[in-house]
Structures are given as structure tokens and as C-alpha cells.
């Protein structure tokens, strides 16, 4: 789960990272009031979870409260990569002498929390790593004892910080690390970390991505989820315990298992169609879950056919088939359904499905082809 900048900064500030406190605003009037309270030139920043907001006009300087109000009016309602701006962060404008990048990631290869640092900040770190790998430090921390003082010094020297800034860097590096561990993050980054002309070291922008598996033990962080920026169908799916991601196609997919769900999407594409979603219904495929999954898929009006692919394995195929037929009867809207069930009692399952007028398929390739054909018959291409 990605956290908004203002949430990420809230967490970093709690762990002692030096930054300029901002004020959240949701209307131009609130932005004006925030600028008045701050009492100096401010930057009005769109709070969205997509990148590239600066280029899209979502970050603007304002010299006076009146200007802050005007800039806020421009930014609120702006659509950045499909996301409508609803929230702003108003922060004191800082003079920048130099920008750095400082981040922590959970590195899968070294199996360690790893510091990523660069003296070329303010830009995409992936870009720097590609074009000038020598400018990026990757420092895996000990997985059992964590960040040590010599690690902090190594990063500070790599960044080429002046002696007085090295002293200020310690609390920032340690604060970032503590925040990462305390919130079970996958990623925590400060980009840019800046020095001001006066020599101060400040975090100007921050991003934290949390490990979804750890969220159950962090109800406070779960409460920071920005529901306004999520697909309503994805919210409904999460509440039903279903793994669901909305895509742009017209063929809904319902599958058990994440790898098989991705494969099913890939085969829909290979058969000339476009998948409308990723959906992993998990184990069992009970009637109520299946019904919830169907409702979520059909909530998208673009969906013209549904492909159900269940590898029953140990579960009985005929039970799954009955569940699908039962769930289908509860639906408001229905579209052609191609159902493929493999596993114990697959033959009995196919009988039940055929009696309910569902299209069946033996292989996954055949199921994908039939789903694409069914969608075409309903209403043309994707």
C-alpha cells in the first residue's frame, strides 16, 4: 500500500527526520489559510499516488496567501494520470543548494534492508542507476542487527556531505530506518533530500510503500489508506477477501491462484482479447465468494464475457460448478460465461455447467479462445 506524501512525512517526522511541516488543504480557502499560518512563500503540492505530478502541473510555488489560493484552485480537480486531485499539501518553500536521493528498500536478492543513496537527487533513481550506476550507492544492512553507525557514516561520505551536514544526516538516516522498520515498509524514500544555502539538511518529499502482508498488525497505518484514489471495485474486492485488480479490457477473469490468474489474462491476450481484470478467488471457491467475485467483475460495464478458470486440485469440481451456477442466479446483469474446471469430478462439473447453459472448455487455451469469441459476438472488440 502506497502512502501519500503528507502521511509519509508524518511518519518520518515522528521518527525525527528533519523536514518542513506542512498543512493539508482540500479547498482553495484552506490553502490560503495554510499559507497565512506558514507566513512565507509556500509550495502547493497535489497529493496523489502517481508519479510525475510536477510535470503535470500539480506542484506550484506561491509567494502570497492569495496566490496560494489561486494555485490551489488550479490544482484541485486536476487529473494526473487518471487520478483527480482532491488533497493538497501546503509547505514552506525551501531554497535549495543541492538535491540528494536517500531511500531504503527491501532487497530481494541480498535479502536485506538496503540503503540506496545518490548525490544526484530530485530525479528518478532508476534513471540514475541506469545512466550512471557509479552515482548510486547500494548498501545492504545486516538483517539481524540493522543500521549501524559505520553504515550511516559510509552513506554520508558517499553523498559528499560537509562536516556539519554529516552531523545532521545521522538523525535523518536513523529516522528513515526506524520508520521503515516500525511501519513494515517495502520502500521508504526521501527524494529530494536537500541542503539549503544556509547549510540545513531537509527532507522535501517523501514516499513510503507498506508491505501489505504486515498491514493486519498496523491498524493505524491501514487507516491511512486513501480510498478516494482506489477503484471502488478494488475496495469491494478487498472487503470480500478477493485479490482483484481492474484493467482496461472486456473479458472478465475469475481464477483460483495468482500465477494461474496472470496466465489466464496472458492467454486471453494471446487469443486476441483484452483482460478486464486480475482476479484470484483463493482456495475453495465457495458459492458466496464466487457470487461476490461475479458482482465485482460485472460492475465494470465494459465486461462482455467472463472466463472462469478453476484448477480444483483437491477441491471437488462438481461442488465448484454448483457454486458457479448458484452464484450466477443471483446476478442482476449477466454476460456469456466460459467455465473451465479441472480436478476431481471435472466430468460431473461439465455436465452441471452445460445444463445451466454455460459454455465449457477442456483446456485453458480453448477457454480463452471461446471467451474472446463470446465477447466479440456480444459487442465487438475491446
Amino acid at each position, binding site marked *: 500500500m502506497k502512502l501519500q506524501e503528507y502521511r509519509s512525512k508524518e511518519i518520518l517526522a515522528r521518527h525525527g527526520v528533519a523536514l518542513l511541516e506542512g498543512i493539508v488543504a482540500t479547498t482553495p480557502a484552506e490553502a490560503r489559510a495554510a499559507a497565512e499560518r506558514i507566513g512565507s512563500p509556500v509550495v502547493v503540492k497535489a497529493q496523489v499516488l502517481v508519479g510525475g505530478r510536477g510535470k503535470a502541473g500539480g506542484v506550484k510555488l506561491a509567494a502570497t496567501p492569495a496566490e496560494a489560493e489561486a494555485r490551489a484552485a488550479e490544482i484541485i480537480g486536476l487529473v494526473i494520470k487518471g487520478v483527480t486531485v482532491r488533497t493538497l499539501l501546503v509547505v514552506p518553500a525551501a531554497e535549495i543548494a543541492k538535491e540528494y536521493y536517500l531511500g531504503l528498500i527491501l532487497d530481494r536478492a541480498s535479502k536485506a534492508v538496503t540503503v540506496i543513496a545518490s548525490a544526484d537527487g530530485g530525479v528518478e533513481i532508476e534513471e540514475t542507476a541506469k545512466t550512471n550506476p557509479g552515482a548510486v550507492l547500494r548498501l545492504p544492512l545486516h538483517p539481524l542487527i540493522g543500521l549501524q553507525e559505520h553504515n550511516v557514516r559510509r552513506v554520508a561520505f558517499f553523498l559528499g556531505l560537509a562536516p556539519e551536514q554529516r552531523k545532521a544526516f545521522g538523525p535523518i538516516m536513523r529516522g528513515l530506518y526506524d520508520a521503515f522498520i516500525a511501519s513494515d515498509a*517495502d520502500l521508504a524514500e526521501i527524494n529530494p533530500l536537500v541542503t539549503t544555502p544556509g547549510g540545513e539538511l531537509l527532507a522535501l518529499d517523501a514516499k513510503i510503500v507498506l508491505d501489505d502482508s504486515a498491514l493486519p*498488525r498496523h491498524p493505524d497505518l491501514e487507516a491511512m489508506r486513501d480510498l478516494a484514489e482506489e477503484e471502488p471495485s478494488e475496495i469491494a474486492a478487498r472487503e470480500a477477501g478477493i485479490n482483484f485488480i481492474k484493467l482496461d479490457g472486456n473479458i472478465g477473469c475469475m481464477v483460483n491462484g495468482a500465477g*494461474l490468474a496472470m496466465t489466464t489474462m*496472458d*492467454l486471453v491476450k494471446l487469443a486476441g482479447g483484452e483482460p478486464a481484470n*486480475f482476479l484470484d478467488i483463493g482456495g475453495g471457491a465457495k458459492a458466496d465468494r464466487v457470487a461476490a467475485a461475479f458482482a465485482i467483475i460485472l460492475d465494470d460495464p465494459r465486461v462482455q464475457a467472463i472466463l472462469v478458470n478453476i484448477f480444483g486440485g483437491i477441491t471437488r469440481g462438481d461442488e465448484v460448478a454448483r457454486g458457479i451456477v448458484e452464484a450466477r442466479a443471483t446476478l442482476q446483469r449477466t454476460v456469456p460465461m466460459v467455465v473451465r474446471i479441472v480436478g476431481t469430478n471435472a466430468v460431473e462439473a461439465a455436465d452441471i455447467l452445460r445444463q445451466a447453459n454455460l459454455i465449457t472448455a477442456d483446456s485453458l*487455451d480453448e477457454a480463452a479462445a471461446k471467451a474472446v469469441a463470446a465477447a466479440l459476438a456480444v459487442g465487438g472488440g475491446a
Partner: protein
Amino acid sequence: MSILVNSATRLLVQGITGREGEFHSRAMLEYGTPIVAGMTPGKGGQSALDGRVPVYDTVAEAVAETGANASCIFVPAPAAPDAMLEAADAGIPLIFCITEGIPALDMLGVYHVLRAKGVRLIGPNCPGATSVGEAKVGIIPGDIHRRGPVGLVSRSGTLTYEVVQAMTDAGLGQTTCVGIGGDPIVGSSFIDMLSMFNEDPETEAIVMIGEIGGDEEERAAAYCAREVRKPMAAFVAGRTAPPGRRMGHAGAIISGGAGTAESKRLALEAAGIRVADSPSQIPDLLRAAGVR
């Protein structure tokens, strides 16, 4: 021969009295897996699976009484890291953790402690392993297999079953099928399993099933180009996955342009490994490579 598990395996099941644990232990026992002990704290002295398996309070006790040499873990995510550490402390050299949803930071410590002890961990968030006709540990359905010369390693569950079924239907049997798990931090890598298959005399060919996220497949491809002389075929799931989204498995995420199915396919093909467009093509690719 086979890898990881066989008829000499003496299996302990941690969480044997839970719903999942009991269900799958029954299936393992029916397959012929020698389950010698179960473990659930507070239920020591009882028995599980209709009196066929004694239950112990601690892994240490189970090992001392039964000589268990492998463990399969079904305990819920909050308790699973401790369960792995307990098994390792009791001297179990091979651990399968089926549990899904373990926080990645919890796994860091476990990974490094187990590694220092020389314990082989498969998973977490994995379906386990089946050595066909010998033993099945985990949740892979037993009846999809057929004994034969192909070893299979995968990051997935039901997708693995799909490929195994396709191979079995085509008359291509397996030595061992193992799922290493879909989490970002797992105990064993593709390379670990590939090197075991490479050294297993009965395994004549290897199938690798990857998915988006991380660079495990790319590393494995480089390893295969260097070390593996057996015919191989591969499949990579997630060509249509959008970047930045976690596709069910915690590890299945394309980040910063890295970890795409395309990059993995190119790496595998550069290593001379044929990559299927659909799981159903795997048997043909194996046949074309001379596997019978």
C-alpha cells in the same frame, strides 16, 4: 531418485490439528508420505488423523521421539516465523512453509538464521514438493502426477498444477515438482532447485515456471547457461500485468520497469531455454528437445 523428499523422508507436520493442516496431512498420508509426527502446542499426547499420527507439544520432543527429518508448516502467518525457527532449533534440516501472508521483515531474520544453520527452507507461501510415487509434502494434488524424467520448479501454486497436468496428459512424467513460493523473501531460489535437479541422475529435463517481479528468473537463466546441460523449457506468467501493482503474490510486482515477463523471457531465451506462450506448449517444447 528425486530431490528434496522421498520414501526415506520422516515428516513432521506443524499445525496438524488445524483445519488446513489436518486436511492436507490426510492427503499426504494417503499418497504414502511417511508422516511420523504432528505438533501443536498444548495438544501433546493426543493423536491426529484417526490415531495414526502422534502429536507433540514441541518440535524438539517430536524429533527426539520419532526421528523426524523434515517439517511441513501450516500454522497461521503471525506464528509461522517462530514455527520455522523452532523446527530449525530442533535440528530439522528441511522445512516446507506453506503459510501465506508472512510479513517480509519477519522473513529476513528467519531466512538468515536458517541459512547460518544450514537448514533448507522451501517457501513460505508455497505449495510444497512432490517426488512422484515416493512422497508428497504440502498441498499439491497427488493425482495430477505421473512418474517420469522431468523435474519442475515454479514460483506458483495452481499454475504449477496446470503445467504438471498438461505434462501428465501428454505422457511426460516427473521426478519431483517443487513450488518455491511467491513471496519476495523465500528460503530457496530457482538456482537452488535447478542445481539439485542438475545433479539428480534420474532427472533428464527441467521445467521452470516463473512470473513477473524481482530478477530470480534472470539469475536462473545465467546459471543455466553456465551449469545446466539438461534440456529445459520455461513459462513466465504476467505478460499482461500492469506495472506497480501487486498481482496476488507479494513478490509479483513490476517495479521501476524491472521484473517484466518480457525481460525474463529474453534472459531465458538468451540462455538457450525455450519459453512457452501457454502452459499447454510445455510438453511440445520438451518433446522437441528430445525428452521421452
